[in-house]
């Protein structure tokens, strides 16, 4: 009986993995925080990714980071390192890991975890100040993460 339940659960998990994007709770992080498998299997679109990075209502990455390639967007922040040349410093898997959940790469970093749905203290319903309704959506969708990764992979100076 017990064995049967376990097998059943395994089948369901395997089924969902092939059916759609990897769920936030199922992402396989490597020891140092990298994620080698694409979250969707669909190649990211760097232009869509650039939009996520600069748009205040989406990733808003430039609230904290400067990106010369996006210098048409004013008011770039100084909290994190500039992202110029980031593709020379990190592999695609490492970048995917940082964007999905930077805390797995940098313990205690201020950078938000963009593909995470649990473990928050007083999560809110976006910026209303009201309590969020469970289950939470991640800050970015799986495809948006892939788009951002594709954009960051274009930031090479070599």
């Amino acid at each position, binding site marked *: 009986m017990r064995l049967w339940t376990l097998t059943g659960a395994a089948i369901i998990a395997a089924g969902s993995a092939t059916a759609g994007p990897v769920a936030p709770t199922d992402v396989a992080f490597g020891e140092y925080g990298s994620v080698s498998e694409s979250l969707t299997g669909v190649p990211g679109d760097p232009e869509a990714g650039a939009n996520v990075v600069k748009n*205040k209502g989406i990733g*808003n990455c*430039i*609230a*904290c980071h*400067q990106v*010369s390639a996006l*210098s048409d*967007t*004013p*008011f*770039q*922040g*100084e*909290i994190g390192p500039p992202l110029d040349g980031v593709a020379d410093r990190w592999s695609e898997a490492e970048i995917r890991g940082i964007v999905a959940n930077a805390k797995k790469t940098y313990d205690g970093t*201020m950078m*938000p*975890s963009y593909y995470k749905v649990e473990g*928050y*203290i*007083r*999560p*809110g*319903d*976006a*910026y*209303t*100040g*009201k*309590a*969020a309704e469970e289950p*939470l959506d991640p*800050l970015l969708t799986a495809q948006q993460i892939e788009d951002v990764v594709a954009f960051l992979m274009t930031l090479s100076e070599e």
Partner: protein
Amino acid sequence: MKFKAMTAIAALALAVPALVVADPDDDNLVINGEIEMTTKVEPADHLDGALPTVMSGWHFRADETQALQMDDFDNPGMIFVDQAMDAWQTAEGTEDKSCASCHEDPADSMKGVRATYPKWNEDAGEVRTLAMQINDCRENQMGAEPYKYDSGPMASMEALISVQSRGMPVDVAIDGPAQETWERGKEIYYTRYGQLELSCANCHEQNYGNMIRADHLSQGQINGFPVYRLKNARLNTAHGRFKGCVRDTRAETFAPGSDAFVALELYVASRGNGLSVEAPSVRN
């Protein structure tokens, strides 16, 4: 030649959009040419080295915004102080009393008050903010309706009382019976709330002086509260500001006047011990 030089300058300006002067400045704050303010001070021992220098939010604002606070005729917050002076003298409630019935001239009776709030009230057995004390007088001395905690009339009354302590050092007590509340406030200050998982300390201790998008982060001190903000053209209370900052972490915020924000106010005020009371200050 001239054309070329101009293009080069334009290109330079475009290439460095984030090059706004980000460090806090070294200007001196003197109000009406006579009240000298302490806007940078050695941190109190209880900060445990968390900040090298404690700084007023005034240093992080643009020159034009700073200037508005240097003369009471330019400071839009002073209009609300005048309005509160009318309220001070207006009898209200079942007792038909005004603030003046008990406290007469605020210039005498309220001098130094702001500097020590929030503080422990022995009879009530609680830490009281200035707003709580104002409402206690309204309800229990005047028989009047309390002001809504972060309302306009409350902010104005706080400003009238605070301005009597302008230039005096913030000196809130954190020991004895207030200590438990202070500890709770400290815990809140360092908790990473919301879906962005950000604490007060992430922005105001680790990153003051840095730009976060278009905002120049200060140390989040409250010696200048209530604050006149150009953005909403009114006086803003400390709890109103806390509420906005917590909301911006994509969190369920706390209510103005809640135990959590009272504790946080005591803690944040204590981080600014030694700074001059600046209210009503002017910010963007």
